[in-house]
């Protein structure tokens, strides 16, 4: 052939050779260099991990009464790959959804695989379940599963203590992708959130082989690599179910908070913020109406008043002033001030009575303002703040659940910043009786009472004692840091004596006196420029061997002795008698009667 055809032969040989070499290089790249990547995709293709969600840990109270458990509920789900969207209309109607709701849910979830079922509605009615069963042939891709939701069998609300779980937010999902999957439920607040890692347990995985249509065709490696799920830890709370229930009952229809603490341990026995909200509403699908209603409630039920609301402590703060003064030695138990109905420092500060001459014990008993006006000028603001910090004020207590506020106790530098070096010293007078620029939370008040009741020693307040050890059946206790104040031991005797007399002497809360157990306490009334004063009471009982310290705050109620102290008494009673008082009296009566025993009341 001609010369040009030789050229053409070379060109064709060249093309053949180049194509083969390119193929070889490409194959080397895919099969040798990137083999791992493709191998992973390949295994992921054919091996499907099916999540086994374990039971969430339940909550027991300190008496091992079940407070929060799991109850089965039906969830309707749709697998988009098999689903026919023309069913939207029927399902919307069956599920009481507004038209287009299902289309919306599907649209939101279209970023996930079409073969992963999407939860449409939790807690569906049994009627809907039977309808699904009957019509399953006409409902491709629609089915239901049984899932666990929270139940509250003891009859306590515990809304701000327990908290609730909800579907993981995209933001949190991004942060914790290695454990959670979209649609998982996570603790949103309260104990559910704080102890999420303990409660959720450990997901298990069952590995199955699937074909290209994701149809299961067998176990992977005969189930040898499967991982069993591990049940969440069952928490034992420090909460006393009876005290909590009584506290909730007593606060019904009121705004405010109750916190009760065991002085020797820092264990929270009851924690109530009122108004509460119904956790059942959050246990499955939360309706929009409910959310609107709760968000628009002027009383803001979602707000945890026990740890977040800030009020002046009023006269309950006098205990701290007394402790500080005695400990510093600026007064002793015999130091006497004369009360003629008020105190003059630049201007006149009045007392609610003319108490005459009294020492610190009786000053507490009578809640004499004049005594404490004098005292604050002896102590000084900086010293008062130092003691306040020791008692947990002006900082977060570090309670193991949820958000809390730090509050404010002012010192000299605070006023220097505002008014300069010559700030008006007259400001100090009202601070001495717990009014003015001073704010504390109910939790801080209860904690401070607990420390005082236990002579200066307690533990960081907490609502969870520990968890049940499934192996031994015993309780594994959690450890919490100890609190020790520098206040001298002997000082407490006088202060507590004063508190004893408040109830048992001629004090401001004599009407809650009880023969069964001696309550000691201190009333307070926080001035409220926006409305009626807030009623406060702190106290502990029994006096000789304190088992419970309590703080009660009732907003816009008026005088503390009248409105807060009786509530405290009810809760104390309920706790010390393990619920055998008031509420449960009838119950117990019938119980014991049925066994033929005679009741002596």
């Amino acid at each position, binding site marked *: 052939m001609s010369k040009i055809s030789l050229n053409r032969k070379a060109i064709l040989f060249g093309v053949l050779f180049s194509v083969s070499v390119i*193929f070889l290089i*490409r194959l080397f790249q895919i*099969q040798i260099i990137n083999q791992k990547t493709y191998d992973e995709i*390949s295994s992921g293709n054919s091996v499907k991990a099916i999540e086994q969600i374990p039971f969430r840990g339940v909550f027991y109270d300190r008496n091992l009464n079940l407070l929060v458990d799991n109850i089965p509920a039906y969830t309707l789900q749709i697998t988009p790959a098999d689903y026919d969207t023309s069913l939207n209309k029927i399902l919307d109607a069956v599920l009481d959804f507004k038209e287009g709701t299902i289309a919306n849910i599907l649209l939101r979830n279209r970023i996930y695989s079409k073969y992963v079922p999407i939860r449409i509605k939790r807690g569906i009615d049994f009627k809907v379940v039977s309808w699904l069963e009957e019509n399953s042939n006409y409902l491709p891709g629609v089915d239901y599963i049984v899932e666990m939701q929270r139940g509250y069998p003891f009859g306590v609300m515990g809304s701000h203590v327990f908290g609730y779980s909800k579907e993981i937010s995209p933001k949190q999902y991004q942060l914790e992708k290695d454990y959670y999957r979209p649609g998982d439920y996570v603790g949103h607040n309260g104990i559910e959130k704080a102890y999420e890692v303990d409660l959720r347990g450990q997901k298990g995985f069952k590995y199955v082989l699937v074909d290209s249509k994701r149809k299961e065709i067998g176990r992977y490696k005969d189930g040898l690599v499967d991982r069993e799920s591990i049940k969440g830890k069952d928490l034992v709370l420090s909460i006393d179910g009876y005290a909590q229930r009584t506290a909730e009952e007593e606060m019904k229809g009121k705004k405010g908070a109750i916190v009760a603490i065991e002085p020797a341990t820092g264990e929270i026995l009851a924690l109530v913020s009122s108004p509460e909200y119904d956790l059942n509403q959050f246990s499955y699908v939360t309706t929009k109406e409910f959310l609107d209603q709760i968000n628009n409630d002027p009383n803001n039920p979602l707000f945890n008043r026990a740890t977040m609301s800030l009020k002046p402590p009023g006269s309950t703060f006098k205990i701290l002033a007394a402790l500080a003064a005695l400990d510093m030695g600026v007064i002793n138990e015999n130091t006497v001030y004369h009360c003629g109905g008020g105190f003059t420092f630049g201007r006149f500060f009045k007392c609610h009575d003319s108490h005459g001459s009294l020492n610190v014990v009786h000053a507490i008993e009578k809640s004499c303002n004049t005594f404490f006006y004098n005292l604050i000028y002896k102590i000084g603001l900086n010293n008062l703040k130092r003691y306040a910090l020791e008692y947990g004020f002006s900082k977060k207590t570090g309670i193991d659940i949820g958000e809390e506020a730090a509050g404010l106790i002012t010192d000299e530098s605070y006023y220097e910043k505002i008014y300069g070096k010559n700030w008006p010293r007259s400001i100090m007078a009202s601070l001495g009786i717990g009014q003015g620029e001073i704010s504390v939370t109910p939790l801080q008040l209860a904690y401070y009472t607990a420390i005082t009741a236990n002579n200066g020693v307690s533990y960081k307040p907490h609502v969870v004692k520990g968890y049940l050890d499934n192996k031994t059946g015993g309780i594994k206790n959690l450890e919490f840091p100890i609190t020790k104040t520098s206040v001298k031991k002997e000082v407490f005797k006088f202060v507590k004596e004063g508190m004893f007399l408040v109830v048992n002497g001629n004090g401001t809360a004599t009407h809650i006196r009880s023969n069964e157990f001696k309550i000691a306490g201190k009333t307070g009334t926080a001035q409220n420029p926006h409305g009626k004063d807030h009623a406060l009471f702190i106290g502990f009982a029994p006096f000789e061997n304190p088992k419970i310290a309590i703080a009660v705050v009732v907003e816009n109620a008026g005088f503390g002795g009248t409105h807060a102290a009786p509530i405290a008494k009810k809760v104390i009673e309920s706790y010390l008698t393990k619920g055998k008082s008031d509420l449960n009296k009838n119950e117990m009566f019938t119980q014991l009667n049925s066994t033929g025993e005679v009741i002596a009341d």
Partner: protein
Amino acid sequence: MRIDYNIKDKIDFFIVIPVVLLTLIGLISIYSSTYNNPLTQNNFEKQLYFVIVSFFLFLIIHFIPTNTFKIISIPSYVFAIILLLLVLVIGKKVSGAKSWLGLGVFGFQPSEFAKIATILMLSNFLSRTNNNIDSIKDIVSALTIGFIPVALILLEPDMGSSIIFFFFILIILFWKGLSVLWLIVVISPGVVALSAIFGTTVFILSLILLLIILFLLNKDLFFNGSVFALNLALGFFTDYIYNILSPHQQARINSFLDPSSDPLGTGYNSIQAMVAVGSGGLFGKGFMSGNQTQLQYIPEQWTDFIFCAISEEFGFIGSITVIILFMILLGRILRNAANNRDEFLSLTQIGIFAVLFIHFLINVGMVIGLIPIIGVPLPFVSYGGSSLMVNVIMISIASNIYRTRKNQA
């Protein structure tokens, strides 16, 4: 005259051995990839049957007189055109294309048979003594011979086969000595028509590029003008056709041009094919042990995606074996074509080389993600009776020509 009884003179082992090995690899992989699929469990036996039939076909064609091919070229071409027309009327639709003719229990694709007929016809025409590849008349005649079947196949519509035809006709013309200018003239309508689908800007750019190349290669204003006008008209025509198509058909074209636009369709296959090949590693997962293959991740992988099964189960070693076997086979046919002094036989062998090479290029290229997915089988390896038989016929022709090479011109 001394007769040389050396068997190497009668049979070209560089052709026969690669074909035998590729067919065996094909049988093994068909067995493995269809074993778990209840719908295709007979495919291995069917293929085995065709292999045996093909073997006898080879023996017959290998030993018939070589001049037979030239004699039958015109009748077989006419017959092929008739079959291609027939299939448009009474053809069976398989995966969107009306490309199968039922023949008793067996179906076959006329386009497969038309490959051989077109090669022979074109070689015959181009090897006539008075043929002048530089004359417009002869070029147009050659193109007409080549593109009548292409047009008919496009009507089925079978994109894969059309592309194969287009390229092997081009390679035959190239071998004959078609000038670069004419090569461009032949290729340009395809390029311009395709660019019209991509939008006005791409269309105009391709026309400008064409104009520049034409004026660099040729000074004849009238010629250039006609070529340009033809391209322009074709571009508008393509655009017009595209716009009157149903959205469903448009989607198919778009998916063809850009597989990622349809990830669950063609794109899915492309990705799963790469995964199958890549996960094979150096030695592969072993016979019957590739999970992509055994779990049917790749649809129809005993046909167009058979290379995945080989690569996954026999690894890099397996896949380079296939590549090298094709290199030897194709290189050998090319060499024989170049050494043959009879122009008809040389062109015929180039045609055979071209058909096999384009299949190999497109099939392996699409599996390893170098070119878009086009449904084309891998010769000798993929499952499919008519494809295997046509390939074996072509190989037999090449082998026959080798046998009688010393008697030729």
